[in-house]
């Protein structure tokens, strides 16, 4: 009972959020409503016993991707309440029928096909079972992924380092040379 009630609450929030994403004029608000929608969807995943996907959903979509959206919006410095160009005004005549078709299509299949596909009581999506799989069956790929991320990190650091260093090639032989290298290092 509670689950069903929660399902409808989350569904309502997600739908309302999605509508607001499109309806808002200010792109920053749109992005923030997108976060709301994604959170509501994550709630639905929890109800489906897919805890891991719920967490990843929040972390990746709400956390990383929307932040990226916001960055781009702010970097591009989009003016508040940017008016849609005139060319887009006629798109509504194409867009509405398309949306209606998509809605009917998805509704049809949702009522016809996916009802049996509801899986009850499975433990596949739990954090625990995914953790177990990661540390038993997939322990080697898991560890290799850490090397992969390390490589990507070193690479990003090297390529974004501001200044190229010039090497002091020879080992300094005398005091004077050592002083020279030290001064060089201080300068840079």
């Amino acid at each position, binding site marked *: 009972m509670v689950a069903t009630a929660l399902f409808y609450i989350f569904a309502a929030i997600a739908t309302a959020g999605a509508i607001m994403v499109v309806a808002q004029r200010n792109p920053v608000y749109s992005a923030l409503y997108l976060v709301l929608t994604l959170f509501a969807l994550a709630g639905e995943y929890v109800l489906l016993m897919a805890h891991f996907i719920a967490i990843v959903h929040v972390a990746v979509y709400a956390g990383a991707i929307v932040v990226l959206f916001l960055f781009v919006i702010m970097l591009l410095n989009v003016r508040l309440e940017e008016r849609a160009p005139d060319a887009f005004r006629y798109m509504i005549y194409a867009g509405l029928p398309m949306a209606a078709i998509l809605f009917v299509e998805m509704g049809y299949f949702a009522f016809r096909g996916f009802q049996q596909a509801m899986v009850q009581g499975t433990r596949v999506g739990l954090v625990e079972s995914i953790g177990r799989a990661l540390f038993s069956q*997939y322990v*080697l790929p898991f560890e290799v992924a850490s*090397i*992969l991320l390390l*490589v990507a990190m*070193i690479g990003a650091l*090297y390529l974004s380092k501001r200044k*190229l260093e010039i090497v002091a090639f020879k080992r300094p032989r005398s005091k004077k040379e050592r002083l020279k290298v030290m001064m060089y290092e201080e300068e840079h």
Partner: protein
Amino acid sequence: MNVNLTGADFLGILPIIILSGFGVVLMVLSVFSQRFHRMTIPYLGVVGIILALISNFFLIGKDYLAFQNMVRVDWLTVAFNFIFLVTAGLSLLLTTSYSEQEHIEFIEFTPLLLFSTVGMMLMGSAQNLMMIFLGLETMSIALYVMAGFRRNHRESLEAALKYFLLGAFATGFLLYGIALIYGVVGSTSFTAIAQYLNKNALSPDLLFLVGTGLLIVGFGFKVALVPFHMWTPDVYQGSPMPVTAYMAVGAKAAGFAAIVRFFTLSAAQIAYQWVDVLWILAVLTMTVGNVLALVQKDIKRMLAYSSIAHAGYLLVGIVADNDLTVPAVMFYLVAYLLMNLGAFAIALIVSGNQERRTRIEYFKGLAETQPMLALAMAICMVSLAGFPPTIGFMGKFYLFSAALYSGYVWLAIIGVINSLISVYYYIGVVVAMYMHKPVDERRIEQVVPGVGLVVLVAVVGIFIFGIFPGSLAGLFG
């Protein structure tokens, strides 16, 4: 699920563990050590590679699956590890003088190269598409960065960006293919794929075939097969010379490791489906590579197109798909390693400060100023062209006889015609060295010990395995 990891599991990836450990330690060392001591880091990297090579000997004669069927430890693993480690070691020796030549600090270079080699070794021993993907990405991401290591040069950054964007695109194909195959088989393990194909050899699911095709695109990009080769010349030209050498040999060998592991060993049941595709790709790759190499004026671009052509020759062995395939491909990979690293090492010496002298005309008169170097280059070129008694000839002989053994007469004929075309541009370098006056008479190329050692290893290897091919071919069965 309970899981028991035994010592055998860890022994199977011991070279990988050693190399990753060295990579991490060297990275930390390079940050905290004094400036002058950083010069020693490439040498420490070579020490790590030698240790990994020694640990590789413990795997000889073993044949088992490790880490829940993720990794296969067999003679092929040992052979591929050997190829990757030697490539990495020799390329690292090339960089010892390079930072001086280029005035860039190569601190992060050694760890990146070691990690990249780890990725290659994972591909060579993978028994699961997921391992192939992770290995390929580890190798590639390190290579993207290494290609852009001359950050003060536009062409190097261009190479890095091109390689990265196109590489990411190709990885998308590979992942799509893996996803489709997983969808059909229900597992990414090669064992499960082979079982599935045993049951459905005559009518595999269409999605499986589409997935296999996407894998061809993904691997074909890495080894530069012809419709997917566009990045090669620009990336090879823009990358630092040691990286070009490493990329040309290592990445190609790793790509072929994946192809052998998946197509030859796991998907052999549906060979009738993919052989024709690879036949066409082999012919295209050989022909386009060789014909375009004819007009190149830059030694790096010339070697880039030549490497495309060599991928075509290797593909001939894969197409043959018989008992000779794996030994012939392995033999040719060793041959390709020796002659290409030798050629790149000499090109590195000739290119001089800041790699300004990469055009072939700078080889003019090398026989007068540096006769030994010219002789070594001539040997490498002759071997690349495939003349006896060099290893290049024996390698091609094995590949084409594998093709003939399976009845691909036309493929072998096209291969031989292509070898004849390639003679023109390889001998062009020799002609420039021996029959022309030097451009700058006073200039004498300096050979530093590390690079000289690479040239020596290459030349000795080319002759020893060219005259006694049995000593090497015997190892591959």
